[in-house]
């Protein structure tokens, strides 16, 4: 269940992380893994998919030490997509919480 849920929401989490500021692949994994379990291997194919959907675009930043680094940034389309996903997510969580709240109330009622 948890892996299934994560599959759908990982896209949203990456978009949300990028909404807070442009970032590069390694940093993104770091940001996400602070609060959730992320496989490093998943990230790159996922970023390419988001790019293909035109939700993110990339630009290179020259660094003083060594070669340039690829930054990902949200596109307008990506911002709209994120807003839609967040709305869907909230509705979904509210629905589930509603059911869980009822179930929890019933369980409490039974024990008391």
């Amino acid at each position, binding site marked *: 269940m948890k892996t299934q849920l994560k599959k759908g929401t990982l896209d949203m989490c990456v978009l949300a992380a990028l909404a807070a500021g442009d970032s590069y692949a*390694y940093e993104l994994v770091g940001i996400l893994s602070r609060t959730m379990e992320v*496989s*490093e*291997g998943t990230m*790159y194919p996922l970023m390419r998919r988001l790019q293909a959907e035109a939700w993110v675009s990339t630009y290179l930043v020259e660094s003083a030490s060594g070669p340039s680094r690829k930054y990902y940034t949200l596109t307008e389309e990506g911002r709209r997509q994120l807003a839609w996903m967040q709305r869907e997510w909230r509705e979904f969580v509210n629905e589930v919480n509603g059911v869980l709240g009822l179930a929890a109330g019933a369980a409490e009622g039974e024990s008391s």
Partner: protein
Amino acid sequence: MSEQEFIRQLQEALSRLPERERQEILDDYREYFRDGAEAGRSEADIAAGLGDPRQLARELAARHHIQQWESRKSFGNLFAVVGAIAGLGFLNFLLAIPFMFYLWMLTMAALASTGILIGGVVVFGTLVCNELFGWPAIHEGRDVRAVWSALEEGGPSANIHINGDGGEKVEVLRDASSGRASIHILSSDGSISLERGASDAVGRLRIEDDKGSVDIDGIGWGVSRKGMLATGIVLMMLGGGGLFLCYLLARWTWRGLMSYGRYQLGLLDRARRTES
């Protein structure tokens, strides 16, 4: 696994991708290794985190080909998608062989239909163009007919015999009652005869010498406009129908194939997440 080994395996497995795309992917992974090293991690640790490079490559290639196909739907791109999906696993590979054959047949059918359609358009177009502009000329066998009508209308009523010194003969024979007419050229070496059949359109050519003979019974004198019109329309209908059928089949095929490909990629995603 070292970074070098990881990159090498990835590069090898991505060999079918265009050079630019491959280099971009490799650069991105090199960057990732650099960032990991800066954070104090070992190459082996980073490589383990990224997973099997060959599996990654297959997934990236499959996505690339599906994307290619979606931006430009050609049979070549469809083949590439099938190949890429086949690369995702062994079972897919077994399924891909009969599927490739099916695609090949579909391609051939589409080519044949296109040929027939073009033939129909050329025949029909020639006719229409001739009607409108009088060009190109359509030989309706006027020349041959002219000979016969000259014979019938303006020529002498009697048959014509011309005899040479060495037994050569040229004869023009007519039979007024049946409407049959013939021209014979005879020499000691052989003969050529041209006969007009009962109908205007059919005749007979016979060439003979001491070694053998050719006998063509039923020569159409040129083409008829009605025949051209019918042939053109039938060819266009056949070709167009065939092409449309191929198009429908191809559409169904690619829809099914794309769902199957996405389903396979989804399985990969899930497998990787369960591993991690």
